[in-house]
């Protein structure tokens, strides 16, 4: 025994000496494999989400809006959404992504990612540490596409196509990229988790997407004036079938919009998915109920508009609230937006053709404020244990949310007015009276949507 022990000791020493680097290497390999597995899962979900968000613009929004206009403007209206899928994409590659997610000041990003310089397979640890920055970039692009497309609901049936293109480019540069930087960019003024001075919670773009587009829509409606024959000629939606299909695609696409904003295939994504769905459901019911009591009939247009209003309102809250608060937010949005578009709009007399302001401006603002009430660290501990919203005991958050809304309202309103002035001077924003009567399909695009005799 005495002789064997030292030999065993030596042997064990020898074995340890042999395997220690092996184990380290194995651990490192394992670590790498785990990271790569997580990245694969997250990347799959984020690419899927990017595609879902693009689906919201075309076909979702394109169909939703197209059904609401008269037959003679169906193509022009779809073109507003469709062409932005191309225009904003180019703009995003050239400077948009950099202005939004580059470093510079608290209002706008710098030029470090111009022409997508340095945006490749390596993750950007500030924003999404587990997916290629290129995935993050293309996902965020889809948001930049749908936001100006939402505005087109306000100037539908009467804006010159060329003016609409110029307007959109300027609007993205002056309103969207800076606003998105303020809320989501590192060091942005309103960024809660990355060092903003006024921390606000906007999970998936209530302020960035819906308030900016909604307020800009109102300004567009006021600037362009009413459609010819407004309140005199019949302007019934030409196909609520198209609108219903569009609304359903929006609902499904919104899972990419909200749950994708978790930027990972995580339990937070699940939570946002659930909140989104529940908010949409109660909003559809709330709008339907309000209308049923008000007019005596539950319309299909009402139900689908309610769902969209709920999806808008739940957007900023989706990653911060539990399912039941999400349902409450949906109810509030359904009722508020119903009265906005069916009463207040008519009382004030402006012609927001497809209610981009009534649904996105009002629903977005309501959602942003209610996020301040219902956001809880139990869902998303974004401030490392500190209270988020009123339900956590931080009532002051509602004021921060209000400040965020006011900044978005002011920037969107002032910039939109100025941009419209420029476009009006350079090109003229409104089509000729004759072109408007003929319809934008023929006068702008030289086509018709429905050639039944062909």
């Amino acid at each position, binding site marked *: 025994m005495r002789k064997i022990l030292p030999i065993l000791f030596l042997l064990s020493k020898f074995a340890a000496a042999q395997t220690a680097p092996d184990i380290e290497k194995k651990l490192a390999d394992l670590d790498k494999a785990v990271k790569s597995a997580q990245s694969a899962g997250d990347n799959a979900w984020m690419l899927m989400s990017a595609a879902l968000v693009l689906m919201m613009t075309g076909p979702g929004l394109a169909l939703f809006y197209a059904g609401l206009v008269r037959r003679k403007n169906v193509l022009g209206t779809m073109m507003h959404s469709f062409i932005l899928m191309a225009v904003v994409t180019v703009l995003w590659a050239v400077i948009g992504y950099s202005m939004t997610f580059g470093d510079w000041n608290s209002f706008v990003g710098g030029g470090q990612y111009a022409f997508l310089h340095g945006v490749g397979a390596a993750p950007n640890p500030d924003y999404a540490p587990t997916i290629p920055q290129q995935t993050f970039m293309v996902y965020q692009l889809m948001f930049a596409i749908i936001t100006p497309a939402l505005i087109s609901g306000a100037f539908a049936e009467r804006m010159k196509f060329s003016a609409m293109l110029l307007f959109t480019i300027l609007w993205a540069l002056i309103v969207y990229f800076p606003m998105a930087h303020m809320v989501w960019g590192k060091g942005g003024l309103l960024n809660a988790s990355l060092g903003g001075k006024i921390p606000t919670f906007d999970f998936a773009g209530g302020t960035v997407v819906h308030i900016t587009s909604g307020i800009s829509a109102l300004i567009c409606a006021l600037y362009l004036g009413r459609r010819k024959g407004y309140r005199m000629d*019949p*302007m*019934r*939606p030409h196909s609520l079938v198209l609108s219903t299909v569009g609304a359903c695609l929006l609902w499904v696409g919104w899972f990419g919009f909200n749950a994708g904003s978790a930027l990972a295939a995580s339990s937070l994504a699940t939570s946002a998915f659930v909140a989104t769905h529940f908010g949409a459901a109660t909003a559809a019911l709330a709008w339907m109920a309000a209308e049923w009591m008000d*007019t005596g*009939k539950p*319309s299909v*247009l*009402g139900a689908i*508009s309610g769902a969209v209003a709920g999806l808008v309102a739940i957007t900023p809250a989706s990653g911060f609230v539990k399912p039941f608060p999400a349902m409450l937010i949906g109810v509030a949005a359904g009722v508020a937006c119903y009265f906005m*578009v*069916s*009463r207040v*709009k*008519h009382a004030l007399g402006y012609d927001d053709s497809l*209610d981009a302001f009534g649904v996105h401006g009002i629903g977005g603002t309501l959602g942003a404020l209610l996020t301040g009430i219902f956001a809880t660290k139990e869902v998303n501990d974004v401030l490392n244990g500190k209270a988020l919203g009123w339900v956590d005991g931080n009532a002051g958050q509602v004021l921060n949310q209000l400040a965020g809304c006011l900044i978005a309202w002011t920037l969107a309103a002032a910039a939109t007015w100025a941009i419209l002035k420029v476009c009006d001077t350079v090109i003229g924003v409104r089509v000729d009276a004759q072109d408007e009567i003929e319809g934008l399909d023929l006068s702008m695009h030289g086509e018709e949507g429905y050639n039944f005799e062909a």
Partner: protein
Amino acid sequence: MKKIEAIIQPHKLEEVKEALKGIGIDGMTILEVRGHGRQKGHKEIYRGMEYQVDLLPKIKLEVVVPATRADEVIHTLITAARTGKLGDGKIFVFDVAEAIRIRNDDRGEAAL
């Protein structure tokens, strides 16, 4: 020859067609039209905007028959198209100067 124009409820078209076939009237022209008489339209509401829709979809059916058969055809039309409610439509009868079959130049009642 008489041309009989009947403006009827769209959902009555099949019944009317069958009834006319039943008395041997095979040829007819159908037009989808819109109009209104004493039947008032209905109200539609889209996001709080009310529209009075008073031009309602109707079917206009045209047949040209020998004058001697006009009363029989009119009677058949009335029986098949009537529901007894406002909006059942109207029948107008015209004299026809000439009928010509394009294929072989048949004239008059032979062309019907």
